[in-house]
């Protein structure tokens, strides 16, 4: 086969991998939208905030250090040791101890960040959405826009606004095994990022876990019940507040996963929250209410925009990745407004 075909295949594979990243963000949107009918504009910022918090904990940054320094005239930036180093074994430690230290130094900050996201979920529910129960969807949407900007500023204030590197020990660079194997087999080596492969695996695990959880667990059933009918859910003894805090917590943890992946790939910076916007066409394609839809939608958008850029881009002057996803979503809206996997609204007459 000619190299162009292989190259197109490679582009497609890379697109799929990029799509996984979009899907990770879209997943958080779906969870909250399903359970509460709220389109959470702040999902992307939540991912940014989670990543910032994780970096802060790993590196031992002092939270609100700018604020503290400005008020007290001090000059604090970092604790003597970040959590990563706190658990690191000393020089000359055996292989196992060193490994354990490295794992703990990552795992504990990740768990702490997850806890922060749960507290955030609780606070958002308690301070904002509890007071907006029964309001029109547009009001709830506006509230999430407010939340997004608040959280963005709060994250800046807490951890500073500079671009940070996030390293949680995920493999980086090109997967050499894949390149060698494909090179031997087809005479063409495929370049796929290790990190993208990890992201794909993580996304798969996440989707399977979430689907099993919502289908078979007691909370999952309550969650689906709340998503379906509030009144009926109340009548069978489900506390709406509890479920909403639960859902925002899960969405927060999904945001953390997305934050880790995006942060590892391109650094923790403000543009991370803009990725959230790419999740919009993903959701229009996949459907706002379907977890598998978010994944499939992400894959189609990711693959579509890379292939389009590859084949059509040169003819129209490039930079098609900026708009392709939105136009594809628009076309989809016309033919299938509920998305690929969205629930059809069946109206009995």
């Amino acid at each position, binding site marked *: 086969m000619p190299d162009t075909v292989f190259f197109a295949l490679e582009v497609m594979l890379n697109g799929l991998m990029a799509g996984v990243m979009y899907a990770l963000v879209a997943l958080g949107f779906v969870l909250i939208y399903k359970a509460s009918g709220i389109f959470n504009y702040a999902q992307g910022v939540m991912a940014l905030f989670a990543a910032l918090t994780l970096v802060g904990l790993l590196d031992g940054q002092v939270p609100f250090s700018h604020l503290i320094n400005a008020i007290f005239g001090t000059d604090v930036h970092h604790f003597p040791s970040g959590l990563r180093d706190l658990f690191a074994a000393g020089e000359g430690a055996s292989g196992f101890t060193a490994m354990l230290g490295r794992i703990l130094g990552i795992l504990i900050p990740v768990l702490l960040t997850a806890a922060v996201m749960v507290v955030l979920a609780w606070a958002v529910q308690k301070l904002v959405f509890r007071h907006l129960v029964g309001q029109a969807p547009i009001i709830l949407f506006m509230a999430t826009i407010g939340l997004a900007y608040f959280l963005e500023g709060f994250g800046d204030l807490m951890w500073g606004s500079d671009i940070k590197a996030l390293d949680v020990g995920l493999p980086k660079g090109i997967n050499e095994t894949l390149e060698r194997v494909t090179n031997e087999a087809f005479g063409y080596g495929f370049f796929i990022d290790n990190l993208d492969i990890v992201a794909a695996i993580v996304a798969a695990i996440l989707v399977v876990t979430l689907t099993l959880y919502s289908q078979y*667990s007691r909370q999952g059933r309550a969650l689906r019940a709340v998503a379906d*009918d509030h009144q009926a859910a109340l*009548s069978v003894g489900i506390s709406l507040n509890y479920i909403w805090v639960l859902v925002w917590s899960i969405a927060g943890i999904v945001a953390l996963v997305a934050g880790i992946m995006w942060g590892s790939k391109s650094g923790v910076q403000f543009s991370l929250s803009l990725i959230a916007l790419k999740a919009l066409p993903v959701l229009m394609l996949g459907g706002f209410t379907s977890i598998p839809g978010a994944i499939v939608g992400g894959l189609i958008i990711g693959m579509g925009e890379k292939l389009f850029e590859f084949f059509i881009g040169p003819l129209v002057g490039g930079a098609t990745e900026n708009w392709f996803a939105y136009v594809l979503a628009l076309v989809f809206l016309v033919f299938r407004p509920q998305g690929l996997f969205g629930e059809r609204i069946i109206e009995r007459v």
Partner: protein
Amino acid sequence: MNAETPVEAIPTADDRKIGPVLMEMKHITLRFGGVKAITDISFDIREGEIRSIIGPNGAGKSSMLNVISGFYVPQEGEVWFRGARRPQMKPYQVARQGIARTFQNIALFDGMSVLDNIMTGRLTLMKTGLAAQSLWWGKAQREETEHREKVEKIIDFLEIQAIRKTPVGRLPYGLKKRVELARALAAEPMLLLLDEPMAGMNVEEKEDMCRFILDVNDEFGTTICLIEHDMGVVMDLSDRVVVMDYGKKIGDGTPDEVRGNQAVIDAYLGVAHD
């Protein structure tokens, strides 16, 4: 007859025993803005009985049921349940106390199967917590199986075996009503509230529903409070009846007593004005 008259046990035609007071509404007044939906109504519900609230459209029957189930909070009056005054509660807390209900306009989970819908009725009875469920899969599975068995019994009882796996959204109206009853029953409630269980049904469906209500009361000993505006059906089913009109109580007693009550006759047939 006065509702507060101490009656220890009322023998009924089929010789069922009616127990002590389970729930008592004392001087309930409910307003929406300036409109009074319920004005100073008191009545009680005894264990094991079928208690009906009847009245013309707009009499405040559904509002009363919503007060009992915690969806509405009355401005005045007290709700007593099992001998204690009930503090102000959210609907889900009321449900957890053992009060299940159905809705006039059917509130089911349309996206879920019949079985899943009925299983949600057992959520309040499930013990295994969030952590245990994820860590201790075996125990959660065992519990699920037990609940499933109970639910299957209810499915058999209400004769809906054939539609067990059907998404509720696809069912015809009469069956939806039945599934809603099944979900309420799955909670093994002490008090079952039915909001117009026969509204919009044809004669055959009505007869089925009547039979189910009587059987539930008979076999499970469930106390039932139901709302209907169809006098005929209610009189056959009920042990005692409260009659409401324009938010006020105009009659209370056995079906025969209520039938002979002049105020009730006037409310239903109209009064001659001259």
